[in-house]
């Protein structure tokens, strides 16, 4: 499958364009002029030490309140999304798999999935998915990920283990089928078997029409989700860009080289 992807890219159409992005939280600048372009169909990985701005980047990409973009811009598939609301970005086809998915008691996972799918369809001017088609889709996708009916009927992420929460994030990813997905430390808290299952789910979505940004601290995840490009983020800017081999290098030598560039304080 992999051979068919990535390699086949004909156009160099940029799905995501981040230009000189400066973003602050509580008056403290975390992203300090970050620029990044991800062509259609490619998987890019961002690696970096703690406090380099990795999670901030994921939140800024998905439109979380509380992050102030002081300059620069983000565009997705030709749309300037810099100031868009989270739901508008989702409707365009952007997705964030959270590092720490919240627990929402009283909202069952299955109802949440159905509401999300139909909200996206409505925003795109499409017809709502009927109950039968939804169940068909849900059954196929949950089987692949080992998500049980019991999990689907429980409150969203309530009482889920770390691994179950991450599988639930990937379930949402495969159900909502975005065109661009940010995976924020999806490997954290996963044992090796769960990591394989989760990676398989993500890989099944790889296509020439879809791009990914995989944020991770460790190289391990990239053994399973092979990136086309690896970037090193430190001190709020991209410090280095290379091929998949860059991840192995980082695993060997650590981030020391980049951390010396990192100025005061750690911000996730």
């Amino acid at each position, binding site marked *: 499958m992999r051979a068919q992807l990535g390699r086949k890219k004909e156009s160099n159409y940029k799905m995501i364009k981040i230009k000189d992005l400066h973003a602050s939280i509580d008056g403290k600048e975390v992203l300090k002029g970050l620029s990044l372009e991800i062509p259609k169909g490619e998987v890019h990985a961002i690696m970096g030490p703690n406090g380099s701005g990795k999670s901030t980047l994921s939140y800024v990409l*998905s*439109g*979380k*309140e*509380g992050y102030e973009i002081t300059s620069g811009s983000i565009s997705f598939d030709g749309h300037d999304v810099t100031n868009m*609301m*989270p*739901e508008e*970005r*989702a*409707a365009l086809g952007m*997705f*964030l798999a*959270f590092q720490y*998915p*919240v627990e*929402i*008691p*009283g*909202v069952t996972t299955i109802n*949440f999935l159905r*509401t*999300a799918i139909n*909200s*996206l369809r409505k*925003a795109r001017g499409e017809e709502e998915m009927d109950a039968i088609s939804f169940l068909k889709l849900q059954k196929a996708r949950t089987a692949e990920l080992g998500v049980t009916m019991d999990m689907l009927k429980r*409150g969203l992420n309530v009482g889920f283990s770390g691994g179950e929460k991450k599988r639930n994030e990937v379930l*949402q990813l495969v159900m*909502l089928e975005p065109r661009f997905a940010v995976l924020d430390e999806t490997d954290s808290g996963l044992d090796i078997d769960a990591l394989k299952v989760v990676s398989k789910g993500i890989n099944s979505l790889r296509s020439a029409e879809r791009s990914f940004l995989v944020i991770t601290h460790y190289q391990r995840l990239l053994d399973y989700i092979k990136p086309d490009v690896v970037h090193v983020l430190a001190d709020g800017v991209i410090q280095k860009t290379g091929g998949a081999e860059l991840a192995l290098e980082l695993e060997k030598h650590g981030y020391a080289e980049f951390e010396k560039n990192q100025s005061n304080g750690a911000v996730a």
Partner: protein
Amino acid sequence: MMVAEAQINNNTINLLEGWEEGLDKAPEWVQSFRKKAADDVMKTGLPTPAWEDWKYTNLRNLESVTLCEASSLHVVPNISSPFIDLKPIIVQLFNGSFVGEMPDLPDGLMIAPINEVWTNDWFKGFVSSLSIDTPMEALNSAFLNDGIVIKVSENTKIAEPLLLLSTYENSKDMLSVMPRIVIILENNAELNIVEHQSGIGSYVCNQATSINLGEKSKLGHYILQDNDRTQGYLFNTTKLNCYDDAVYDGFSLNHGAKLSRHEIFADLLGERIECIINGAYNLISTQHHDTTIKTGHFSPNSISKQIYKGVINHEASAVFQGRICVHNDAQGTDGHQLNRTLLLSEKAEFNAKPELKIYADDVKCSHGVTSGDLNDEELFYLRSRGIPEIEAKQILTKAFVAEVIEGIKDSVVRDIFLSISIEEGTK
């Protein structure tokens, strides 16, 4: 009776108006019962914010109301209720009086209008043994006539739920309704009751509910209070006496009237009782709702739990007062109380007064109160999946309330409550 400084104000006189009507037709004991109650009301007056238990609920607006007699309509109003789906035994009260035909009742279940049973010794014995602790109860007692008695015989389990449809309606002046509901479960009896209270137009309803649960009996008591939100005053005083091994599973969903107060006295007189009094309320506009619960543990090893969740929007206000009192003999008591409130507007107001009074040594008791806005992280999570902000807020509000509804023991009743829109009620 709590006697504070007597304050005989206009609303006392207003609400007592007409209490003597039909008095001569009542049995002698009812006449003296009513006279004494009316006297009590005149002595104390109605509560004012100077009374400790009424600090946050002010009845002064009642002063200006003009009451007219309850309409004695004998046409059964056409009520839609989501609880019809339970295929229940349906009994209808209109402005406090029984209307329509009495349905066929299963063996062991007796339902009758109060004024048809009040010559019976057991009824007299039960009602005259009840303490009268509040002026609202005394006021209701001064009018004892309307309402019904529900009684389940020993060792009888009633399979079908009972749906009590209570409607208040008046389009002219204010209407005062003083129904009494008496629920008696004899030893080892079981029943589920759903009360759907629906008020339209302006009215004052002051209901008193007296419940007696015999040994090993089980009562599911579920209330949907689904009134016109802009008008109406609704007072509901529930007195609950439980004996050994009784189970009370109580839940009420209050969409409120203009002003409402639900006051519950639960006396756990026997051992190993399980008493659950849960509820939720959702207030908008300038509505005011007050829940006041007083639980008394008198014997060892009983459990009492209360969880109330409130959603307050606009300029509405709510009060939660909860007192658990564990008496000397009540070792091994397990008493818990939790109140969580969602304040959806800056002008929404919430006052809470949790209290624990513990006179026994070996007990587990807790109480807690929280209030706040919707969780930003949860809101962002839903929005990031494409759910628009308004809808995401509705989902989270409903989920907040659903958590307490999910505690209802009867799964079919639970599902119906879950399907009721928290914003709109059933209307």
